[in-house]
């Protein structure tokens, strides 16, 4: 009798806990979605051909954000062209060769704040190597920053390959490099594509290192070569929010919605490849 009684009250307690947790989860999820909507929707009404294709005008009260869009694409491209191949090779080394000190180095690197990569890039690339504030300096800095992210994800992917696959290849007389490049890498191609796109999403929204190495607030010309400074979407939003106040708020809202669109696009492509794998 007493047992059923306690059991009864315990079940009620459990139900209460479950409901409380459910409310918390949904409350926070809805809050996050609300913040997302506040960031995305207000900017949509400024989308027009002019907004995407022209330069900012009249103290940021008119015109568009074409140079910032172009700059973001250029910087992302430069940094990924360097970081993706390097990151994949490094990830392979981490998983296929037992070099614990390199794994350690990558883990430590992955925790270093992005603004410190910016400091490093400013000192080494912009000043010591005389690249000044430029696409190349910013791209190199960003590629160093995502290198550990890409390589540790590739490491995880490679580790998930069953050992039998490697053994089968070795049994057929393949060399280690052949096992890696002809057998293992093709078998996880989709996952590696996912990793690449996730890192693109990471790079495109990065702000702090670019303030130090690549971005200017206002460029009157489009970049001529890799040694020109650029405007980018995230730094443009930052500068507008930090220094321009309400008159330029519309442009920051517009740029924010464009940046979010880019991030969503990149992540959707990334997750598409992950789903195909299953």
């Amino acid at each position, binding site marked *: 009798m007493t047992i059923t009684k306690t059991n009864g009250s315990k079940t009620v307690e459990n139900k209460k806990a479950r409901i409380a947790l459910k409310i918390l989860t949904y409350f926070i999820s809805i809050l996050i979605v609300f*913040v997302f909507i506040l960031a995305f929707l207000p900017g949509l009404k400024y989308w027009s051909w002019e907004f995407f294709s022209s330069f900012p005008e009249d103290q940021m009260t008119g015109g568009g954000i074409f140079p910032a869009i172009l700059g973001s694409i250029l910087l992302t491209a430069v940094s990924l062209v360097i970081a993706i*191949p390097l990151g994949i*090779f490094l990830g392979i080394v981490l998983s296929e060769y037992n070099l614990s000190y390199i794994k350690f180095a990558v883990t430590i690197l992955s925790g270093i704040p992005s603004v410190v990569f910016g400091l490093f890039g400013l000192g080494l690339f912009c000043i010591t190597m005389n690249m000044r504030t430029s696409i190349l300096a910013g791209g190199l800095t960003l590629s160093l920053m995502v290198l550990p992210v890409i390589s540790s994800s590739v490491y995880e992917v490679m580790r998930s390959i069953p050992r039998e696959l490697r053994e089968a290849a070795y049994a057929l007389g393949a060399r280690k490099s052949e096992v890696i490049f002809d057998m293992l890498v093709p078998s996880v191609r989709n996952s590696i594509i996912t990793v690449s796109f996730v890192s693109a*999403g990471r790079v495109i929204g990065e702000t702090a290192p670019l303030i130090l190495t690549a971005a200017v607030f206002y460029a009157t010309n489009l970049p001529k070569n890799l040694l020109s400074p650029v405007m980018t979407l995230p730094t443009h939003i930052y500068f507008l929010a930090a220094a321009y106040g309400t008159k330029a708020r519309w442009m920051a809202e517009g740029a924010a919605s464009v940046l979010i669109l880019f991030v969503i696009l990149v992540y959707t492509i990334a997750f598409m490849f992950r789903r195909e794998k299953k």
Partner: protein
Amino acid sequence: MHREIKDKSRKALLAISSIIAIAALFGIYYYLIKESLPAIRSVGAELFFSDQWYPVWEPAEYGMRSLIINSLIVTVLGTLLVVPISYFIAIYLHGFASKKEKGIIRRLIEYLSGIPSVIIAFVFLTYLSPVFPNIGIYSPQNLLLALIGLFFLTIPISTVLILESLDSVPRELEESSAALGALPLRTYMKITTRAALSGVLNAIVLTANRIVGETIVVLLLGGGAAMVPAKLTDPMKTLTAVIASEMPEAAQFSIHYSALFVAGLVLVLFSTTFELISVMLLRRSRR
């Protein structure tokens, strides 16, 4: 012969990329220390023991103690705010949510973890910051606002990390706990959490590391006063914010320039400590 060349060149590629990674790590440390030396030599211990940060005054003062303390305050408070909530969300998703519900919320969280910090900072600066003066808070940007921004920035990653470590606990353990009469919530909080403890602690450490290195949210929402806040609604500035806001104006190779590298060096020491703790925790969880 062709096979030989292919083999050699592929191995060379792998070797070069590992050398670059190692060089980058040592390069960053070497470079930060090298550029920090002028400030350490000319300012000395005052760098770390004085609260007076007036780099552009005459005579300039470079005491970053308050900046260091602010970075720590933000990290501790931010982590304390985010971790318990993300832990309970992770418990719900792990144990109570239906499979479909879990999938949808997880996907949502993964998407939102990609939202750039500058956008989160912009939203709170535009919509929440102007409210503060109306409710009697004198500084529209302050520690509280920065913490709210950091909460939204880090809750996705913190939740996913904790959820992954809870999900990795063997199902049998939970079943035997249930068989002994423990109710689900008790099982998840006592048994599963204890089994996944290293993973959960690792999630906390990585969240703290994310917060200590976050720049734009703290810079735009923190208010920018180089002093230790006495209450939540005071403005403040952290090491990361100082670097990003002052470096573009600091004269090359000046003491100010060098002092900002010292700030970077302190940040790297924090993040390296966090990563070392994380490596140790993961090693323990694998055992």
